[in-house]
Each structure stands twice: as structure tokens, then as C-alpha cells.
């Protein structure tokens, strides 16, 4: 199988590491070769963060380059727009519609772009946008945005929902398990 590429983008501190951990765990169990690449350190302080997840028969590069991502999973809508160049032709964006203003917008040096979802679609991206924060809160924690997104992403994979749920059970501490399983279900819709 040709290598498939999932990019997870968001704002430092939003919990993208758990999402990539979940995907890595699941895809390895499915028998694929997997690579997951993260960036730690400085960018975690509220900066723009990117995680690459790649899987297939044999994966070489740990990173995803422009025009290569089959999926961009975005925790924040402006981050989806920032990484649009990484999407391949006919690639899909799964994004949270939440807006988190970066410091240049807060200080007034820049404006937050409007109508981003429509603009992404105009460029040929297939966009699946949803208010993950509200769904996460409905599940019981605003921190479960990551698992809401994983729930939605799971719809586009041939892997049964139970396998995703088993992965969540294996990776999430017991006291947060129910919240995350609920978040997954709400995301999957």
C-alpha cells in the first residue's frame, strides 16, 4: 500500500499529542508500518504546532511535505488555512471551527481572516468542519476536542469503530475514559 499521510495541526497546548498517539497505536495494531513526528519545546507555548502521522507498508520520511497530506486534522480553523499547501489534490480537511486569536491579532497588528471554511473549499479542499469545543463540553470536558476530532476522522477509515474505542481505552487514564469515549461518539456523529 502507498503511504498515507495525516497532518494534525493546532495551537500548542490543545492536546494534539494524544491524537497522534492514538493514531499511531491504532495503525500499528492494524499491521501498518507507522511513523509519527512531533515537535517539542518552544512551539508548545501557544504557538502553531504540527504533528505528522504516516502509515503504509514501509514508511521512510518522518515528515509530510507540501502537496502530500491525505488528511489535515485541525484543532483551530486558521491553522487549517495555514497548512492548506500541505494538502494533496482531493485531500480532506477535518477541522474544528473554533477560533483562537494569535498574539499579532490580540495586539491589533493583524486581523483574523474571515470565511475561512468557504475559502478553503474554493481552493478545492474537501472540508468537514464542526464545532468540536461544544461537542467536547457536551462530552464532559473542553479538553476532549482532540478525541472529538478523532471521532470525525474515524468515519473516513475502514477500521471499525470498536478498534478506535479500544485504542482510547488503552491510552486514556481510567478517570477520563468515559468522557473520551463520549467525545469520540459525538465526533463520529
Amino acid at each position: 500500500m502507498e503511504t498515507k499521510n495525516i497532518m494534525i495541526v493546532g495551537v500548542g497546548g490543545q492536546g494534539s499529542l494524544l491524537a497522534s498517539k492514538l493514531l499511531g497505536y491504532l495503525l500499528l495494531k492494524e499491521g501498518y508500518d507507522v511513523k509519527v513526528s512531533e515537535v517539542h519545546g518552544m512551539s508548545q507555548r501557544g504557538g502553531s504546532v504540527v504533528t505528522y502521522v504516516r502509515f503504509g507498508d514501509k514508511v521512510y520520511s518522518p515528515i509530510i511535505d507540501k502537496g502530500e497530506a491525505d488528511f489535515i486534522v485541525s484543532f483551530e480553523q486558521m491553522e487549517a488555512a495555514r497548512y492548506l499547501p500541505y494538502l494533496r489534490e482531493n485531500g480532506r480537511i477535518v477541522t474544528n471551527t473554533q477560533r483562537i486569536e494569535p498574539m499579532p491579532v490580540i495586539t491589533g497588528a493583524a486581523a483574523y481572516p474571515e470565511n475561512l471554511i468557504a475559502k478553503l473549499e474554493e481552493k478545492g479542499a474537501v472540508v468537514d468542519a464542526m464545532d468540536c469545543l461544544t461537542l467536547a463540553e457536551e462530552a464532559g470536558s473542553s479538553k476532549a476536542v482532540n478525541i472529538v476530532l478523532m471521532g470525525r476522522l474515524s468515519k473516513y477509515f475502514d477500521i471499525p469503530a470498536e478498534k478506535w474505542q479500544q485504542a482510547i481505552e488503552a491510552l486514556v487514564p481510567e478517570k477520563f475514559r468515559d468522557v473520551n469515549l463520549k467525545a469520540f461518539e459525538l465526533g463520529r456523529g
Partner: protein
Amino acid sequence: MKELMLGNKALARGLYEAGCSVASSYPGTPSTEVTEEIAKYRDIYSEWAPNEKVAMEVAYGAALAGKRSMCAMKHVGMNVAADPMYTASYTGVNAGMVIVVADDAGMHSSQNEQDSRHHAIAAKLPMLEPSDSAEALSFAKAAYEISETYDTPVIIKMCTRIAHSQSVVETGERVCPAQKEYVRNPQKYLMTPANAIRRHPIVEARTKQLVALGNQCVIGNVRLNRIEWAEDREDPGENVANAPHPAEDGMGRVGIICDSTCYQYVKEVYGDSVDVLKIGLINPLPTTLIKDFAASVDEIWVVEELDPIIENHCKQMGLHVYGKDALPMEMEYSQNLLREAMGVDIPASVSLEEEIPARPPVMCAGCPHRGLFYTLHQKNVRVMGDIGCYTLGGAPPLFAMDNNLCMGASVSMLHGFNKACGEASEKQTVAVIGDSTFLHSGMTSLADIAYNQSNSTVIILDNSITGMTGHQQNPSTGLDIHGDPCGKIDLESLVRSMGIDRVKVVDPYDLSQCDAVLTEELAVAAPSVIISRRPCALLKTVGGRKVVHNKPLVNDPDKCVGCKACMRIGCPAISMKDKKAVIDRTQCIGCGVCRQMCKFDALVSTE
């Protein structure tokens, strides 16, 4: 069992399986997790040292005593540790010693992107470069074999993409070799000139033996260097010289020599369609292997990040190679970068016409540095900066840092600046340095101020942790690498004992106190130290006790006039909506700094 493992964790696993017994490091991205993972194996003694030089000397001492040891650091940390390392190369070791260094091409979290391979060449030490987690694990074992067989410390060089990428590994059991006996041997270990003179030729002979090892490619069951022949070519086996000369097959063959993460990019672009010489033992380079490989292809490319180490070696050998004339010396490589340089099609991609605002990292909501930095900005003082989270204070809207250089430099730069300019500078210049950075290498700089007497004002930002690298303990926190109680250096007593009489402690959440103390200490004609003390806002416990934050603040829209005064502190929890300030309650920890900015009492507690 097959599992997905971070490169740094796999390296730690390999060191553990190989019987590493003593580990000492100073944290630094992207190397930190190696030691954090080592610390989870309680049959290894592990510690955070005050700095990399100390860590290396501890690891060296343990190897001398007869137990396998390690130390880990980021690339710039190796500069700090260079002094012991260069002479440890002469003395060699008793039991194996591994030095882990992690480079940061692309400067994800660093002030420069120096190439650590130069250190290996200059110190004449063998250096291994894994290309994924599985190699990080196996090279750790090979490193101890090389260390003990060739009597030398061995460097394992990681880079951000190997250190912070997860790939598949298979773990094994720990095999701990018996402790070697320590035998007093001044000719080997006491580096007086007379003894060192005799050790240097031994180092040169060792390098020749290591070149032979590189040509053989294998130590134990670990393959350090390897050729992967293209699929259309018959594998000549171990004897590369038997490979058909290109003139015989007339194919116009391209061969690529690469190392580290570049190997992955080469394979991503070309798969098995070109001949690849993958270098794992980067120093010393395998001269015969390179020569034979070169003879079996028509055109040679060298693909390596940062400096042309392999390329220059090839050129010294008289080979014609392509490399840095087409590929950059700076930043990380990628598959597209390679495609573009080597004339391969790049995948189509689109982007929006409008510019997407940047999202730079910022100081967290409730960060204790914010109140102090706002005061510095208000007073328009010159700020000699240092290395840590607080470097983010140099960004708008705080602009509270003029410069930074390396760990500990703020204090000595301040002294130099003040000696050059005298009173004019002394009254309007300060140094800011974190607690961990101060203990790393700011102490000796403060000794210079105390000894050579400049009227300098040094501010220690004591947030009770090493923040930037993800909350490691340090000698002033009173806890060890496991979070257990240990020795605790009292900063006030330390500073006073150096002869600095003026030591003030301020709460950075209190803007008027910060202003008053700064005004006084800048004016006084004596060396002074201000300790700005508040735990990092992200800490869940301090000194073993749970941190309880204040309730978040809320903006009263009836009182708020939309003057944006609260925005001047650059808190990511505050934004404007419909011309009124809005506080994000998921981020706000109720530090109250914004409240002191508001003249209309609009920001109120939700207690």
C-alpha cells in the same frame, strides 16, 4: 514485542538494555527525553546535573570506576561540555561511556543550528548517527561495544526529527556486564604534559582502527554503515569492490551518500531505484567503502543537513561529488527540498491568497515573568537576556529583552556593558536569568561582578523549575530527577556568600513592588541581585505541595471602556470582542496583573 517509540525513548531503551548504570545530564530540547526515560529505569542511577560539563564529568567518573555510563545534551550543551570531552578522548575510558548530543537543524527550540559532527572530528571521537528509533536502540548497544573495544567515549548524534519521531522498535532484555576493576594508571589518566604527549599518538592510531571498523561496517550484530544497491542491480555482497563498474552496465548510475534523517528523505524520493551508501558511523568516515562505492556509480550526490562534512571528506579523497552546490547549508531538509534540488517532480499544492497571521509561541497566561517584564518595558531599561521561556519576553508587546547569547551570558554581558559605559549604563541596564540557567552558568558570572565590582543589577527569575524544556527539577527546587526530596541551594544565601550585600525578593505579580525595587536597585551604586519569585503557572505542585490558583477574572462590560490598557501586558487569555476586553476563563489563573493595569476596576475576580 513491536511498538511505536520516540527516538529519544528508544535510545534510552538501548542504553538500558546495554547495561548503562549511571546517567547524568542537563535538559535541552531536543535531547531531554533521553534522560527522562532513563530515569524511569530505577536500576540506573540518574540525575539532573547543574550543567553539561558537570554531567559529562560525572559520566566520565562513573566509566572510570568501571560502570557503563551516559550523559545527554543538546548541541549547544556540547560546547559547555567540550572541555572534559576533548581530554577524555586522550585518556579513554574503563567501562563504556556514551555521550548523547541532539542537534536542532531548523532551530525549533534553539539559538543556533551548529553541526555537532564538527565536535566529533575535533575531539577525535567516534560518532554514530541513527536514522530512526530502531537504530537509536541498536546503536546505543553498538556504542558501548565500540567504547570498550577501542577505549574511547562514543558520541551518539540525534537530531530533532530522529529524537522526536516515533517509529517501530523491538525491545530486548537488559544485559548488564560485570563492573570493571578500576586500576590506578597515571600514564593513562593523569594528563600532565608528559603523559598527554604519549596519549596523543594512541588517539591517532585509534582513529585508523575506527576507519577500518567503518569499512567493515559491522560491530557485534549491528550494521553501522551499509550500501543499499538499487533493485535493478545484482548485490555484490560484502565485497563492494566486486560491484560492476558503471562503464560495464552503461546505465549512467546515480549513487547517493547520506546520513541521519537525510537517508529517510532519499529513500522517500527514490525508493530502491538508486544506489545508496548510508553512513551510521559518521566519524571517522569509511574511506575505502566510500571509494569503492564511488567507483561503482557514475555520479555521486551527498545529502546531509547543515555542514558539508561527508562532502568535504569526499573532495579531500579526490572524488567529484554534488552536494552543497545544490542543497542548502541551513535549516532542515525534506523530501520536496530534495526533489527540487535533484530535478524530481514536486506534488501540486495550493494556498490561500491572503496572508495567514503568524502564531508565534507566547508566554503562558499567568506566567510570572510577565509582570516583571512589563515593569522593565515601562522603565525603558536595557535588558541583557538569557536562555529559557523568558526569552519570549523579547517579543511584542513586552519588548523586554535586548539580546541573548548562551546560557549564563546575561550576567557577564551586563558586567562588560557596565564596565564599558560606567554609570550611564549601570542605572539603566539589567540582566535577567532563570533559576536553572543561573545555577547552570550564571553563578560564575556573578562571581565576576562580586569580584571585579560593577554596579550591576541582576534579576534572577525564580519560577521554581526548569520551564522551557518541560519542567525538570534543578538544584534550587529541593527535588531530584524523580521528584524525591534532595539537597536545595538557597539562592539568597548563595548570592550573599559571594559578597553581594543587596539581595531583594519581589513578587512579579505585584507591579508596584517590582517598580519600587527596580527603581531603588538601579539607582544604588553597588552590585545587587533581585530575585523575582513565583512558581511557573503550569506547575501542578511546588516542593511537593499542590498549587491552587486563584479563580479566573472576568471583565465587567459596564465598567470596561475598551481602552485596551489590559492588552499591553500581552496575556494570551485577553482579547477584544465588540470593543470590550474578554478573558478566556480556560486559560486565566487569576494572577491579577491585568487588574493592576485597569483604571476602571472592570476586571473582577469570580471568587
